[in-house]
């Protein structure tokens, strides 16, 4: 499925909104991450935020949605809503899955064996690199990443 991008651009309110609906394929991730990082750079977020915090966190959220939430099933979709406004950046990634216990996943980072694990760092990185990470289940499972202006 071709990414369906709707950009409303910057309005009088200074708000910029980007939206996509994509098939659950990891190949779709790069273009979305690049677009959101570019929008953050244009809006004036610091370079390091655009190089590190946003791309890593958003890649993690999208990869979780595609691989864990939708089980890599290309018939299931992931919706992305990115908004930059006076508060900062807010990105919501919604899949068709039932979600998972992020608290339990985060708790593992305190275990001695965590460093040797090959997986389980994605949720930790999102929390480490964003100001706020929220999750909920409604119509699908949503992760909301929030980064305030410095």
């Amino acid at each position, binding site marked *: 499925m071709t990414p369906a991008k709707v950009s409303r651009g910057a309005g009088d309110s200074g708000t910029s909104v980007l939206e996509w609906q994509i098939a659950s394929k990891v190949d779709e991730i*790069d273009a979305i991450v690049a677009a959101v990082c570019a929008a953050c750079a244009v809006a004036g977020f610091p370079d390091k935020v655009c190089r590190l915090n946003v791309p*890593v966190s958003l*890649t993690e959220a999208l990869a979780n949605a595609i*691989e864990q939430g939708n089980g890599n099933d290309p018939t299931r979709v992931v919706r992305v809503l990115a908004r930059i406004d006076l508060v900062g950046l807010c990105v919501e990634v919604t899949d068709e899955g039932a979600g998972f216990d992020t608290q339990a996943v985060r708790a593992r980072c305190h275990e001695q064996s965590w460093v*040797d694990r*090959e997986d389980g760092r994605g949720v930790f990185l999102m929390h480490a690199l964003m100001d706020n990470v929220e999750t909920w289940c409604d119509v699908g499972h949503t992760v909301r990443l929030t980064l305030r202006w410095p």
Partner: protein
Amino acid sequence: MAFTFERTDDLLSIAVDGQLVVGNRQEFKQLVLDQVEQGARRVLIDFTDTGYIDSSGLGALVSLGKRIREHGGELRLAGLNEDLRTLFELTRLDTLFRLHDSSDDAREGF
């Protein structure tokens, strides 16, 4: 995103140009494992031209480090910029890998 590699005896040098992320980590991992199966024991990964690494990429490095050690070899990482070092420090992977400023630095005593 591209990987370029050079093989001299049992030394494999591989450079990651772009990102090491969920979309390419399997290709990267397989490339290194194939070389290890063919006798590479000293593996040097150069991140000088790498933008960022996600948790899948970090996991691939952990996995490769184990496999290379199982074969009696060693994995060294070089050229990590400040952002990448931040990722390694956050995830405590700086305690698992030796991080070198440059490939030349990593080759010393390797």
